[in-house]
């Protein structure tokens, strides 16, 4: 199994509070991603990173920010959590396509966030 650890695995918080989810990898992969999974929507990309301090928005980035100060860590922050951000969040990693990657991502086990 790819070395990906997400923390916390479960969190309940109140509307308006800040929340940070952490993804840690031991594979030294270049790309890191944050997805959210919601019924009827599948997996939707929030933000991704293609290197240290290099990040970009995905399709559902509003209300989220990310940071990557080290290769192994990718943080997802909800500055002021809302009930619509209740979801399961998945971190994923991948190598570059020029190293043979053809789209295969390795996912963490997920972080379930409930915003009351």
């Amino acid at each position, binding site marked *: 199994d790819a070395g990906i650890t997400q923390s916390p695995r479960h969190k309940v918080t109140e509307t308006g509070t800040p929340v940070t989810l952490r993804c840690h990898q031991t594979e030294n992969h270049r790309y890191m991603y944050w997805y959210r999974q919601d019924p009827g929507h599948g997996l*939707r990309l929030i933000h991704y990173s293609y290197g240290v301090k290099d990040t970009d928005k995905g399709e559902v980035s509003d209300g989220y920010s990310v940071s990557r100060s080290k290769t192994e860590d990718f943080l997802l922050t909800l500055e002021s959590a809302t009930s619509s951000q209740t979801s399961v969040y998945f971190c994923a990693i991948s190598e570059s396509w020029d190293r043979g990657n053809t789209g*295969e991502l390795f996912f963490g086990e*997920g972080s379930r966030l409930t915003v009351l």
Partner: protein
Amino acid sequence: DQQVKQNSPSLSVQEGRISILNCDYTNSMFDYFLWYKKYPAEGPTFLISISSIKDKNEDGRFTVFLNKSAKHLSLHIVPSQPGDSAVYFCAAFIIQGAQKLVFGQGTRLTINP
């Protein structure tokens, strides 16, 4: 704009029979198509992929078919086993640029004994 669509939220198949999961896409620029499998309380895991220049790829009980003219792909599982019960996500990938994987909504497959 949903670039990858799985129009069947669920599918129920008898053990030993063939399971066919379908996926449609709109962007003709996709280079690879992938299927992921997800069990409850776990992250998705890669199952099988196909290049856009091929029309079939097989791996054991799993075969993916690609019809570029129809912008359609399907995953065949033969024979279906109880352990195949999971949510299956179709995904598509463009090599150039941002290297983002676009997922469909998922299909929940249930294999009945």
